């Protein structure tokens, strides 16, 4: 593992940003001020960051309904995201998309998505475009364990293999699709085992361990960049909140989340390791924590004090042009 200090700081900062963003959205949602459906990524940070640390703006990712973490990891601007979640006119999608549709094509973020399994076909397209554009870019589709069963996902694995696309499919197995266990809905041991059905490498990785994810991601991405084709990587991880904000989570054991937070918190694990190994010191981390807290605070205040769209916006941007 060859991360220098700057990179380690960046990794921690991104993960902390995601965590703080989600924790705060959780709180703010409870006040009733955030409209719509919100799905939080807290607990899964090491996956988004572990992959996106390898990517540039030219590389593309497609996300899911649980998209905040992927956005932040891919460099989408936090104030624009928060304003979007609040439905404001200066939101990254002008208040038209909301939490489930945050996108920023300039950052190579092709969108959160309200449709489970919609990302993988789009990512085949991004991979294809990269092939024609000869820019060495790769394309990464994040899907959940639930989404891994969707026909669109499996078709995409096949297509990426047949066309030898520079695509990476990341199955974020957080144990549940809504209230349904992945041990029930996925009919084989590991999602990554399905890679064999599509002639590509499949790897299972501990999604709480940033370093493990980072390494596995790096190999798959390198391989894809070099024309070696697609991979399927399963990150085993956990979500710290409900499926959506408002979920009573009765399908979980009483102390499940509490225990997970203790034993399987990717941020804690990261901190322990870098401190243990003397790669970073406590001050480093504390500074970032503080900085991030301020950033998120600012983003929320900024969002709350921003204007809502106005009626003229309703019919703009349906088409590029429509006579």
């Amino acid at each position, binding site marked *: 593992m060859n991360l220098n200090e700057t990179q380690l700081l960046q990794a921690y900062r991104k993960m902390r940003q995601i965590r703080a963003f989600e924790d705060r959205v959780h709180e703010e949602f409870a006040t009733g001020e955030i409209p719509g459906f919100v799905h939080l990524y807290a607990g899964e940070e090491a996956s988004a960051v572990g992959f996106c640390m390898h990517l540039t703006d030219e590389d593309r990712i497609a996300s899911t309904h649980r998209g905040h973490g992927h956005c932040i990891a891919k460099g989408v601007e936090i104030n624009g995201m928060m304003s979007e979640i609040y439905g404001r006119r200066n939101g990254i999608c002008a208040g038209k998309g909301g939490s489930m549709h945050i996108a920023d094509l300039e950052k190579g973020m092709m969108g959160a998505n309200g449709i489970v399994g919609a990302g993988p076909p789009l990512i085949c397209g991004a991979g294809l475009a990269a092939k024609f554009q000869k820019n060495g870019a790769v394309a990464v589709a994040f899907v959940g364990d639930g989404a891994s069963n969707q026909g669109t996902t499996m078709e995409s694995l096949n297509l990426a293999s047949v066309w030898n696309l520079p695509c990476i499919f990341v199955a974020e197995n957080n144990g549940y699709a809504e209230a*349904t266990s992945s041990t029930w809905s996925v009919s084989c041991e590991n999602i990554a085992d399905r890679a064999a059905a599509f002639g590509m490498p499949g790897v299972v990785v501990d999604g709480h361990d940033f370093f493990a994810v980072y390494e596995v991601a790096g190999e798959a991405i390198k391989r894809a960049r070099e024309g070696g084709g697609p991979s399927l990587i399963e990150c085993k991880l956990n979500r710290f909140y409900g499926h959506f904000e408002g979920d009573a989570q009765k399908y979980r054991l009483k102390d499940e989340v509490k225990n997970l937070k203790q034993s399987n918190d990717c941020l804690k694990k990261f901190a322990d390791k870098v401190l243990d190994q003397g790669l970073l010191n406590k001050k480093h981390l504390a500074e970032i924590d503080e900085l991030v807290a301020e950033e998120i605070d600012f983003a929320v205040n900024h969002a709350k004090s921003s204007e809502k769209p106005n009626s003229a916006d309703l019919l703009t941007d349906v088409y590029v042009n429509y006579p």
Partner: protein
Amino acid sequence: MARIITFREAVNEALLQEMERDPKVIAMGEDVIGGSGAKGEMDAWGGPFGFTKGLYGKFGDRIMDTPITESAFIGAAVGAAVCGMRPVAELMYIDFMGVCFDQIFNQAAKFKYMFGGKAETPVVIRTSIGAGLRAASHHSQSLYPIFTHIPGLKVVVPSSPYEAKGLLIQAVRDNDPVIFCEHKSLHYIQEDVPEGSYAIPFGEANIVRDGGDVTIVAFGLMVQKSMEAASKLAKEGIQCEVIDPRTTSPLDLETIVESVEKTGYLVVVDESNPRCSMAADISAQVSDQAFGSLRGPVKMVTAPHCPPPFSDVLEDLYIPSPNKITEAIRSLK
């Protein structure tokens, strides 16, 4: 004695009563139980809106969670229907139709015809429609015109708890494939609903309000909005007749035409996007059948030609409002 229950409870009761009545009735969908394979409680969800809550306790394996594979499980419902069962499948949001439409429109809808009359496909697909929850473009559409377009399907758009119960019971008993569209903004609407079982026949419109000046035809939630508009206009001396067709296919055109013959004016209120919509459909059919009775153009009040937006300000403009209905009516007179 009044028994006030919600739309949600009415749907739940209809399912419960039909499952009790007929062992062939089974139900399936994503988290319609909730908790399959998990370590916590079963029946943790009863569907995302709790519509099927409690059925697992009563009927066990006759209600089934599914993986997130709409083609497979909606198709399985269709296949089971053709093999003698009466499945009720839940397509969580009508917006998800795009991953499983084939099993609905090419399979379920066409079996009877393609097979020379020898198949029956008594499947019900319950699905939620409509905007209002700030759920944005993938969770707010009202795509029933697409299903109405397809020969072989029946399409139901209930407007209240009473209607929902009776129409769902009919849907389960009906021998053709039925798309049952539950508007999300109706879930917590309450009204008096009989405890006993009753079926409301398809293709019989409900005249929700009598009036001689103008006919309003509306579907689902739009019936409620139209009633608001009608009350306002009544104060100005304009009497609206409000008609709820209940089913878009079959459509009770006769009742609509009779009303238009009386009033001379028609406004159709439809939350779907305007092009090739139910509003257009009814306007065209009435123009064709009752041209001589129309004293003014048929007005259509629909969502605009854009996807459902997220922001509350925009979404409120997107959904047809009582105001827009009254404006349309005033423009006629």
